[in-house]
């Protein structure tokens, strides 16, 4: 059975800090499954996602994403890997404001020949995705800065999905949205992922979302933190 990702004996500490922020014995996710990660603010959720993306490297341990050990790769190769296989959604600022939603959706094809190949008619696909995500037609070709935050986050889903990546990594994508928009977002994300059999790693404060995921993982308070008092 192939894994979306697998962490083993992972240790990571930011340079210049005394204690390791992350210490994970083992964490894995099967292909096609959805994982919800929660943890207190500052517990290292975003840091963990950066490690999964191959932007940061751990002090020790293994990070296998799609059965490839990222810690063995040089930075250029990790960048290419990210371009080819991952779709990333941030909490906000997911779009280049001067590009239209359609152009924003096509962005991941810029750096990945693999995804260009997997998306033979990019414009059409982008428009189809955006329509599926209920983005009004008249917004498809206007600069993205004119979109509401909720609309922008939905465009981000389409952008993450284009060219059929294997894993979607989302860092609190709903925290800037109100309840109605949040539910709409979650529904869109799951539908799209279901359709393409895409694995998801999803980080959020919002525990009410957890139940919709196959697996959950709680990041422990980082060591050395308790003495500083809680936030």
């Amino acid at each position, binding site marked *: 059975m192939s894994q979306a990702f697998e962490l083993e004996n992972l240790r990571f500490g930011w340079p210049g800090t005394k204690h390791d922020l992350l210490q994970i014995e083992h964490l894995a996710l099967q292909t096609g499954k959805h994982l919800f990660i929660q943890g207190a603010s500052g517990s290292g959720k975003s840091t963990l996602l*950066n490690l999964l993306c191959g932007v940061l490297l751990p002090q020790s341990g293994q990070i296998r994403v799609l059965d490839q050990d990222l810690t063995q790769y040089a930075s250029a190769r990790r960048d290419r890997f990210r371009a080819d296989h991952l779709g990333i959604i941030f909490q906000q600022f997911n779009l280049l404001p001067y590009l239209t939603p359609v152009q924003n959706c096509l962005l991941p094809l810029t750096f990945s020949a693999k995804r260009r190949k997997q998306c033979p008619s990019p414009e059409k696909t982008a428009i189809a995705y955006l329509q599926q995500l209920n983005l009004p037609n008249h917004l498809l070709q206007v600069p993205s800065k004119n979109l509401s935050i909720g609309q922008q986050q939905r465009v981000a889903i389409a952008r993450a999905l284009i060219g059929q990546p294997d894993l979607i990594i989302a860092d609190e994508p709903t925290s800037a949205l109100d309840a109605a928009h949040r539910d709409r977002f979650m529904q869109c994300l799951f539908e799209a992922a279901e359709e393409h059999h895409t694995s998801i790693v999803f980080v959020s404060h919002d525990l009410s979302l957890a139940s919709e995921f196959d697996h959950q993982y709680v990041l422990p308070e980082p060591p050395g933190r308790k003495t500083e008092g809680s936030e």
Partner: protein
Amino acid sequence: MNFLTLSLKSAWHRKTPLLLAALSVAISFALLFGVDTVRKQAKDNFLNTVSQTDLIVGARTGPVNLLLYSVFHLGQPTNNMGYDTYRFLQKHPQTQWAIPLSLGDSHRGFRVIGTQGHFFDHYRHAQGQPLVFERGERFNDLYEVVIGAQVAAELNYQPGDRLLLSHGVAARAEASLPEHDDKPFRVSGILAPTGTPLDRTLQVSLRALEAIHLDWQSGRPSPLKLSPELARKLVPEPTEITAVMVGLTDKIQTFRLQRQINAYQPEPIMAILPGATLARFWQSLRHFEQAFMLLSWGVFVAALTGILISLLNNLHQRRHEIALLRAIGMHRRGILGLFWLDTLLIMLGGFILGIGLLQAGLWLLQPWLLSHYGLSIGFFLPDVGQLKMALMALGAALLISTLPGWLAARNNLKKGLQP
């Protein structure tokens, strides 16, 4: 969409700050090219004033002084030389031709040169160019005058017009000088522009100068008036002139003849080699030239600092954009590329704008430069030397924009993707 179009779109999105930076670069380029062009062309103009004249002879003074008043009509000659000496030079076996020059009168701020008809045969400027008449011909009659191109243009004279000469040379063009008002001159011809001080002079015969001063005593009109026709009959041989231009039959004899003239017994005179003296004089102006170049490079450094500041400002503004591009797989070196592209656009825009600015500026300033300094400066496109300067500037700009690029890349590594 490839990376280049993407970055161009991003630049277009930030066009106002980029344009402002480009504008400051444009001003620097215009200054840099402008100063360089003025420098080069002023030098050419200057060195081309006299050509194929082997010696200039005048009363003993400093070589540069003799050059300045005989060729550039700047300042006053300290002493005159005897006409006999001119005859000696003219008859000398090594002399091919000798042109007498007599300075001292003026016409509405323009100098009058007393000379002889063969002046127009032998005078050469630039790379040996002879004088050409745009209209009319040289003076034949005693009361005829030839005028330079700028004199004709500024005072709007035509051949056949009559004009009066003034006694002496005024410091300011408007100052009133006593006029030789009873002996008007007829314009016989107008010279084509030469780009030399000659364009701002009038030429008459030596005898004409004698004739109009015949009834003058110690710089004032005497009560005894002579009519032009009477003066024509009574006019004597000149006794004094200001300088002589000499062409030799054999250039190899130049130094020998110079020594011989410097040792001339009957009166103290000296001979200079105009080319060498011009070059030496230009050398003495070098630090002005260097100061100007230094100044324009200084302006350039200021503009580069401006670029750096605007890029550093960008660093913060563009962190979301950079995080996003990194997330979709852009390598960290791509960040450097983004900053380089910005710089390239600024420099390229500044270059083109700067050329336009300089062309427009010179077009506006041209009449003023010409009338005040006799400088005719033309600039169309930068020459090879100036292109090299531009490339150096571009190199420097790319180098300094590496700093914000590198900072952004390092930041990205230290902080991960969090925008």
